[in-house]
């Protein structure tokens, strides 16, 4: 079955390409600081914000402590409301289940609301391979689909695309419209997309959405959006499929409110997204609209393995994107450099857990551990500590590059012997001063630094030697 093949091992090469991509850099520069300022403003306007983050963390931890039972409670409610719950151990299983439902519905096209689980399972590729056309209805996802890409940000999928690039894609794809039409206005582009997708809403037999939350008390699935496409995708077709991973469960409607209060504020700085929709089962008897069938595909794909591990806290993630908005590495290279579905700090922790540390291990290394991600995470997830845990696993498996291991080994040997260390540092200082006083323009073996920076030369002597001399 088709799957997004991760290019995470090529992170450095991907990053290099990203740094040289003028369009991408323009897009990143344009959006930089935007989400940061908005979140800060929203936080300042709600005095209880940080307290709510603690509560959100605590309620999610309570769920994880009894995840099996909350899932069963949720399943009972979905079934009682006339819906169907399907359990998928792997992405392939999820593909198979979704295809079965779509075939049974005789679907020729499927409308997609934004779903990261759908991306994780490469559901569009699976549908297309089965002769079913997936139509992305989220504007950002639609743009990305036209470009043949995957999203570069978990809530702003097309953040890496400039406006001229959007216009180019629309002209290429919307061949039924007059080629001489004026698309210089952003409003014209929006109007065009709205018009093109409106017709598609009425064509599809199946609508697939994700779920920001699943509510154990009532069996609701919840989507948090701004466009309304997720709602049209689930209300017009005959069949509504929800794709959600196991850890999306919250106990009650009140708990959902706690999460909602920190979710949009952390993501875009809004107090509430425009549309927060709670869906429960198929249409009721007498309903004139709404789907006739409601299916929830619960995906494991590695989550059960994270429970009880050093990475359990990652299961608290509510996919707000605050971490990547505040990450200087993400802001420098954009989301595609990460090479798979989940970018930024949350991607650095989650990707090795889902695709293995051999394939995903580059990502937790591409961090300075500055900690800004953890500082803004609404669920208080200790992201740098978990990245460090991945590095520990790599070290134990001898995946750490040989040069790094060797260098660390030498350092450890010398630095564990103070007398030897004194001699070594004295020699090193003298050697560096031979290369230049004040500043060194080129370091042998240090091209990574001196390629673009000077290297300040040592003052002379060492503190420890001078201190000893003064005694």
């Amino acid at each position, binding site marked *: 079955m088709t799957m997004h093949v991760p290019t995470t091992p090529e992170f450095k090469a991907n990053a290099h390409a990203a740094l040289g991509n003028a369009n991408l850099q323009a897009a990143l520069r344009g959006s930089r600081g935007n989400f940061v300022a908005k979140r800060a403003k929203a936080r300042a306007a709600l005095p209880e914000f940080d307290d709510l983050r603690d509560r959100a963390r605590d309620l999610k931890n309570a769920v994880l402590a009894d995840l099996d039972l909350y899932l069963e409670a949720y399943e009972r409610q979905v079934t009682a409301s006339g819906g169907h719950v399907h359990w998928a151990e792997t992405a392939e299983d999820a593909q198979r289940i979704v295809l079965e439902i779509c075939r049974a519905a005789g679907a020729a096209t499927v409308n997609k609301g934004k779903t990261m689980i759908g991306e994780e399972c490469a559901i569009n590729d699976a549908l297309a391979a089965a002769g079913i056309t997936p139509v992305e209805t989220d504007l950002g996802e639609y743009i990305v689909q036209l470009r043949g890409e995957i999203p570069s940000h978990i809530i702003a999928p097309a953040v890496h695309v400039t406006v001229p690039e959007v216009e180019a894609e629309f002209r290429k794809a919307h061949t039924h419209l007059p080629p001489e039409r004026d698309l210089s206005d952003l409003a014209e582009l929006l109007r065009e997309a709205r018009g093109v997708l409106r017709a598609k809403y009425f064509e599809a037999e199946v609508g697939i959405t994700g779920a920001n939350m699943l509510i154990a008390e009532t069996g609701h699935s919840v989507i948090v959006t701004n466009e309304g496409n997720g709602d049209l995708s689930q209300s017009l077709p005959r069949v509504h499929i929800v794709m959600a991973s196991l850890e999306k469960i919250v106990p009650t409607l009140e708990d959902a409110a706690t999460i909602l209060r920190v979710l949009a504020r952390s993501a875009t700085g809004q107090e509430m997204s425009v549309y927060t929709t709670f869906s429960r089962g198929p249409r009721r008897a007498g309903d004139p609209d709404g789907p006739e069938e409601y299916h929830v595909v619960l995906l494991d794909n590695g989550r059960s393995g994270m429970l009880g591990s050093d990475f359990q806290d990652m299961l608290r993630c509510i996919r707000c994107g605050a971490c990547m908005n505040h990450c200087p590495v993400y802001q*420098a290279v954009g989301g595609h450099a990460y090479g798979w579905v989940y970018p930024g700090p949350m991607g650095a922790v989650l990707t090795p857990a889902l695709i293995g540390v051999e394939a995903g291990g580059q990502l937790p290394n591409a961090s300075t551990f500055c900690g800004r991600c953890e500082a803004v995470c609404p669920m208080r997830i200790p992201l740098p500590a978990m990245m460090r845990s991945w590095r520990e696993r790599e070290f134990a498996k001898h995946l750490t590059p040989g040069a790094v291991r060797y260098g660390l080994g030498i350092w450890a040997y010398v630095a564990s012997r103070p007398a030897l260390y004194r001699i070594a540092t004295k020699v090193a200082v003298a050697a560096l001063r031979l290369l230049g006083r004040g500043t060194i323009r080129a370091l042998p073996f240090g091209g990574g630094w001196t390629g673009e920076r000077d290297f300040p030369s040592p003052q002379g002597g060492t503190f420890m030697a001078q201190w000893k001399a003064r005694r």
Partner: protein
Amino acid sequence: MKLQGKPMPAPRVALFVTCLVDMFRPSVGFATVKLLKDAGCVVEVPEAQTCCGQPAWNSGDRETAKGFARRVIAAFEGYDYVVAPSGSCAATLAKDYAAMFEMGDPWRERASAFGARSHEITSFLTDVLGVNAVAQEARVVATYHDSCSGLRSLGVKAQPRALLGSVTGLELREMAEAEVCCGFGGTFCVKYPEISNVMVGDKTRNVAATGAALLLAGDLGCLMNMAGKASREGRAFRARHVVEVLAGDMAGPAIGDAK
């Protein structure tokens, strides 16, 4: 001296000088000693110190890191406080050492107790010793970079600014994105030099935009990274460790200058 209004014996402080200060800028170590002595501390420098072990810890080599931790804890036990002129090294001592050892390992308790006594220099002066002013003068426009570990692991933000505020004639201008990482990150700058270069370029641009003549921070790694970039770019501003200003040690060359 008095601590919180009560007469106390002079605190015995062990200086953890850090490998970067030891090798690249000993004057920072001496400025730190001066500040501690002026504040009424007895200062000693344990001879057996080398490195805090942060490179090993951050690279995932827990066993080597634990070895460093045990040696440092053993060499520095018996003092009232351990103080370092570095947010990242102080954070390693204060927070990471305890996390290195498993629950039940007696070293965990020892590391925890040791960590509780370990501090970064500026926050030690203000938060522990109650020093909120230094009698120094420096007629210069400066800006302050918040090194990540000090800021987020130890909460060092207001303290250096409070002390700098007491320096006569010093005008402190905040740069845009003062709290954003400079791209040093220990091994990061050599593992991912391209990305590191972009980050430090953003940082020197923000520093220059303030018009400040002097860039200050509490971590020499960050300072060397930013000074090195500024030098390559031909920027006008100079970089010093914050203790140099606070101790009145501005005569010597700034970081990366021959004179």
